[in-house]
């Protein structure tokens, strides 16, 4: 079973190599075929995963470079599995968004391998390797296939995240020099009593925090995101928001919170403040956007802000009651999945509109409901899911996050709830501008959804409904992990 993880990481890499010999026209099919295998592996992993067991499973352990404490240590728990499933879902979805050239698919596959690696590695060196490995394809995808301002956006993206990574690496080297291990589990055990002493611990904390905060991103380290998402081609935007942004949240859960529980408690109110700022300011900024892609990008920051709110609420409180901590953490986990699904779908729809119209400003459309009712209908479902309408996936995650964080940090959560209102305003404004009113001249010839597009949208939308109505099948993946993490953190 343990080799499943190795397979997951290597098959996309081999696929990327294989793409170079595949005829141009078959590139997408080859990439999708590769994803069929990884999806199969991910499902097998899910099948063999013991959801009741909170410990790491399917562990693979090899010595790598003992001199620097590097080991090949990989395994999965509920959170890892959730993210593996999300990755396996979003990549084929992104491949189907628009036909691109071979290089695009190859880079995407490399990124996919890096993501699988990031979500399974349990040793810092290995984790960091994969973490950085995902950065370069993302940079190239924006730089080569991006839109108007791609050079600036790509550079900004790279510098921002790379700076964060360097800070994080330095912090970990410092920790290694003192503690002599890179193993996540061991570090977490040491973290309970204080990983480092003196003021140097704040330096280490700040380094890791910076690296992850940029990745998520958390206000005010977010300004690279709207530019990058706006410039990236549709498929890359979907992956960036759907999966790559989850690396930051995952890092917070796996690294920062267990390693520095005491430090987080001290700066907790500040972190909560940042999360609330993320939620409010990004939703407000989304309101002011006229470019659809930029608008969705800002809402992405807003939704990840809810994740941060839940995490910080749990860690900032001493002895949080089990039910509240578990509610908030379950909500965060679910929100990770939901946001990946919904935000990717939104970018997909924006891509469809852009493909048809050649533009993607709010003012470039009007009265679409009369011309393309199916496109409007399905897109509305994704929008309502994103604004947290009950019955769709977004609601459950947000409800659980708010349930937990309201009990733990009522004031912050009450302010954050305004974000729910502003998000609704943003989406309804967009729907009004795009769908309603008289049909504008320029949209009079737009085609409605094609059969191929329906094949993509229907399963994704059904999944949104499924999670919204019966979330148990997703929650079951990580319930044990949540319970254990809640005990660890409080």
């Amino acid at each position, binding site marked *: 079973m343990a080799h499943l993880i190795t397979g997951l990481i290597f098959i996309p890499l081999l696929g990327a190599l294989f793409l170079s010999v595949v005829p141009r026209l078959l590139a997408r099919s080859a990439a999708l075929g590769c994803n069929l295998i990884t999806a199969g592996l991910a499902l097998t992993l899910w099948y063999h995963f013991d959801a009741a067991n909170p410990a790491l499973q399917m562990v693979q352990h090899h010595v790598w470079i003992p001199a620097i404490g590097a080991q090949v240590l990989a395994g999965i728990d509920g959170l890892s599995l959730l993210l593996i499933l999300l990755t396996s879902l979003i990549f084929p979805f992104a491949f189907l968004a628009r036909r691109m050239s071979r290089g695009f698919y190859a880079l995407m596959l490399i990124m996919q391998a890096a993501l699988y690696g990031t979500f399974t590695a349990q040793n810092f060196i290995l984790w960091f390797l994969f973490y950085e490995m995902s950065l370069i394809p993302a940079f190239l995808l924006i730089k080569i296939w991006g839109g108007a301002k791609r050079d600036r956006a790509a550079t900004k993206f790279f510098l921002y995240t790379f700076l964060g990574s360097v800070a994080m690496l330095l912090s970990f080297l410092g920790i290694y020099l003192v503690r002599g291990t890179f193993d996540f589990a061991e570090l977490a055990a040491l973290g309970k009593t204080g990983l480092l002493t003196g003021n140097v611990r704040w330096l280490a904390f700040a380094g890791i925090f910076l690296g992850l905060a940029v990745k998520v991103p958390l206000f005010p380290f977010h300004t690279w995101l709207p530019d990058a998402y706006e410039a990236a081609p549709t498929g890359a935007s979907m992956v960036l928001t759907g999966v790559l942004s989850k690396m930051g949240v995952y890092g917070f859960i796996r690294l920062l919170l267990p390693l520095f529980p005491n430090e987080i408690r001290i700066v907790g109110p500040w972190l909560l403040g940042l999360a609330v700022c993320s939620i409010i300011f990004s939703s407000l900024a989304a309101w002011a956007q006229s470019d659809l892609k930029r608008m969705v990008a800002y809402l992405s920051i807003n939704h990840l802000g809810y994740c941060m709110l839940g995490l910080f609420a749990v860690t900032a409180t001493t002895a949080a009651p089990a039910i509240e901590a578990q509610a908030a953490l379950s909500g965060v986990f679910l929100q990770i999945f939901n946001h990946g699904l919904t935000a990717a779908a939104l970018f997909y729809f924006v891509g469809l509109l852009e493909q048809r119209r050649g533009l993607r400003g709010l003012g470039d459309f009007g009265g679409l409901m009369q011309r393309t009712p199916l496109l409007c209908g399905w897109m509305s479902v994704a929008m309502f899911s994103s604004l947290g309408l009950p019955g769709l996936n977004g609601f459950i995650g947000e409800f659980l996050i708010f349930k937990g964080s309201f009990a733990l940090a009522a004031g912050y959560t009450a302010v954050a709830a305004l974000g729910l209102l502003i998000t609704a305003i943003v989406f309804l404004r967009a729907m009004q501008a795009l769908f309603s*009113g008289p049909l504008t001249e320029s949209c009079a010839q737009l085609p409605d959804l094609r059969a191929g597009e329906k094949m993509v949208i229907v399963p994704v939308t059904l999944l949104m409904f499924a999670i919204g109505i019966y979330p148990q099948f997703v929650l079951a993946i990580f319930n044990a992990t949540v319970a254990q993490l809640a005990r660890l953190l409080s």
Partner: protein
Amino acid sequence: MSNWIVVHLWLIPAIPLAMALVILSLSSARRKGAAMLAIAGQVAALLLSLTAFWSTLGTPGYRLFHNFTWFTFGEQTLRLGFVLDPLAAVMLLMITFVSLWIFVFSVGYMAEDKNFTRFFAYLSFFSAAMLGVVIANSLLLLFVCWELVGLASYLLIGFWIHKPSAAAAAKKAFITTRIGDIGFFLGLLWLYGRGGTLLFYDGGTGALENTGLLSLGISATFIALLIFCGAVGKSGQFPLHVWLPDAMEGPTPVSALIHAATMVAAGVFLVARVYPIFAVNAINGVTASLTVVVWIGVITALISALIALAQWDIKRILAYSTVSQLGLMMVSLGVGGVSAGILHLLAHGFFKALLFLGSGSVIHGCHEEQDIRRMGGLRGVMPLTFITYAIGMMALSGVPLFFAGAWTKEEILHATSLWSVSRIPHYLMLAGVVLTALYMTRQMIYVFFGARRAAAEHAHESPPVMKLPLIVLAICVILLSIVLTPAWPWLHDYLLGERPAVNLSLLIQPMLFVSLALVAAGIGLGILIYRRATIVDPMERAIPPLFRFLENRMWLDELYDWTILALARFAARLSDFLDRYFWDSLVRLCGGTGQLFGVLTKGLDERGINAGVNDATGLTRGLSRFISARHSGQVQVYLSVIAVSMLALLLLYAWLT
């Protein structure tokens, strides 16, 4: 603790929901099929509601529930449930029954619309969500259905989406109600955190049962007020009432179903449902939260009754009337007359649906004209519409004895007179009765009496499929009054869980005469003022500024637009600006500092280190060039150098020794 119908209560909303999904998947050409399916779904829901109602009749104070696990998070479980008690049962009956006839009416009213099937899908979906609100035994399930009701309302108000005004009204409705819903959501979270459960009834441990209520303590007031925010939004209470009149942009059956009979009543229902939370620690039936409910209700009822006096759109008058009546219901709940409030809700559901369908019939007959100044004299052309409308009007105004609204209104007035805090609401509500009679008389005269103006000239009576619902609802309004009389207050006692008793002496109460006098005054005054009404309103002629003030809805929309909305828009633009220029500038500053550092090091490199190295290498190179020039490879030169050197050495040796 359950029987068949309680366990299967979910079927009541599920059937219309299933119908909605089936209809959505039909092609838009299957018009007949769509209507049949939707109506069949309503009939099935009505029959099940009747079964449910029947089973509650046996024992006074009947209450059964059925709870189940929705999902588990971590090691915790979240449970939902359904409850069947008199409150739920009568609401089920009213909603399914009124909806059914509105569905039938729509078959005629929407006959020409090209999105006919979609309309019935939305209607069924709405009905499903609304029925879900009623049977929920969990505040969370109620909230879920509550939001879905909001979605249905959004879809239906904006049904004619090609009209920009309809799209704007739909957006306004959704957002305004969501403002209230944020409060509701926080109240729900607070209740969940304090009480540990969101189930209303759970065999003694529910949130509305003793132990649950005791655990709330002082926070009960805040929880109640937050939940009330949701009711304020949904039920169009001041200051969130502004969306309801705009919602009249939707097709008229929608106005009848959603914005008169059912959805707007959801707020009143919500307060009634969680009433125990409002009443925690009550002294003499008075709590802080209930006092707020009373005053909000009073303000709403009066403001909107006044505004209704100066409106020209036939549906907007009814919309403001609805807002006003909802305010009255809130007052009733606030002063402790829960059953009176709910009874008025039920009666209002019938007569307001009747009035809206009547207005739909008028609009249809006048070729989509809604301005009452362009109508007039329709009583001759549309006799049936006129008679049924008159019945609705009398029920709304509160003409005693034979009309459902009169008894319930009387009971509310009675309840307000007993409120121990203040008598002011009582007097203001009495004034409200006069105003109600006045604006309804005005509307009746403008629409059905006098000369036939522009749009009325080619008016025609509606087809049978639209007449039938009018007749049925009119009959119901009269029949309902029988179970509502104080002499045999069957429905009242049923709701309170008491055995009904006949007491004929209660038929004649002082309040009866008071309200009779007030209604007579209102109608009489109305006839006096408006009998010779022209297209210029008498009040407009007498006091123009006041009329403008009311006609423009006290400029509340403009006020919101210039204050709250302007502020929010400014905040949005500011956030965008900060992002683009402030935060990004900081980043660029960091980048710039790095660059500057680079330039400096480059200078140091080139001028300092590099120059030093250059000089050193230049020196070495010059030296080596000099030396390498000596290595010419000519043996003669080498030999001569050796010879000269040898000679020099010998000379040196000789000189030393």
